[in-house]
């Protein structure tokens, strides 16, 4: 077993109203970042886990997302490649 570090990005499902993202976009516009079209506020998780290899670590992270970390009704998730610690 090796210790892997896996980063997970969870964002609101596309098409759902994201009031936090809208509020942040408004603030960015008022700061002069007029090019900003959309902002989505989500969560970033960093998990350190023992696994046989990088694929197993990523598969485990995927299972964590579907069972607990992301709500399948309202959120999408992406898993970065697992890197050994």
């Amino acid at each position, binding site marked *: 077993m090796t210790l892997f570090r896996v980063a997970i990005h969870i964002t609101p499902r596309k098409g759902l109203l994201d*009031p936090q993202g809208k509020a942040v976009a408004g603030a960015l516009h008022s700061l002069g970042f007029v090019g900003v079209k959309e902002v989505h506020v989500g969560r970033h998780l960093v998990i350190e886990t023992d696994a046989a290899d990088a694929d197993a670590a990523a598969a485990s992270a995927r299972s964590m997302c579907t069972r*607990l970390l992301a*709500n399948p009704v309202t959120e999408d998730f992406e898993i970065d490649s697992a890197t050994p610690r």
Partner: protein
Amino acid sequence: MKFGIVTFPGSNCDYDAYRAIVDSLGEEAVYLWHKDHDLMAVDVVILPGGFSYGDYLRAGAIARFSPIMREVAAHAKRGGPVLGICNGFQIACEAGLLPGALLRNESLKFVSAPVHLSVENNRTLFTSGYRRGQQITLPIAHGDGRYTADDATLDAIESAGRVLFRYVDGNGEQSPLANPNGSANNIAGIVSGKGNVAGMMPHPERALERVLGSDDGLLLFESMLAGVAA
């Protein structure tokens, strides 16, 4: 009749629910600790309001995996009545006992206020004491109450009459202004397909005496009592 009220770490309306059952309804109630595996032979389970597990990750997401929730899910599967109020509604959705999810209020503000509701379906275990279309006033107090589901799910809920309550204005109109959190179709409460699990963001257990603003919540508990005893 025996009611079981689940106490999660962070629950804060469990005593209100207890008082509703024991003092207002005159029935028996027990607290069910989140780590227990035994429903203590209760007839009805109440998932109360609060901030279980600090609402970390998502409201209700962690409470859903409490040991007691396995028993609550089995109770629901057997057709046993479950009422989720506020955080309890969020937990019931996370646990898959009810469809959809509750997201951050559209205003991004925590809203604590009495709201007008219309009773959309009074042919359920939870609402039989109300008249259909009756306007009632119950308090809400939440930051994550925006009911959301995909279009197919919303259609299924609507066409089956599974909306219990909708937010309305003082004239009974279902307007965007009357919607305190941006919920789809102004939905404030729904019931499961089998009719035995209900979830609602407003707090009926905080509306039991007119001197405190409203006693419109009492009929909900009386409905359950009449329905389960029947």
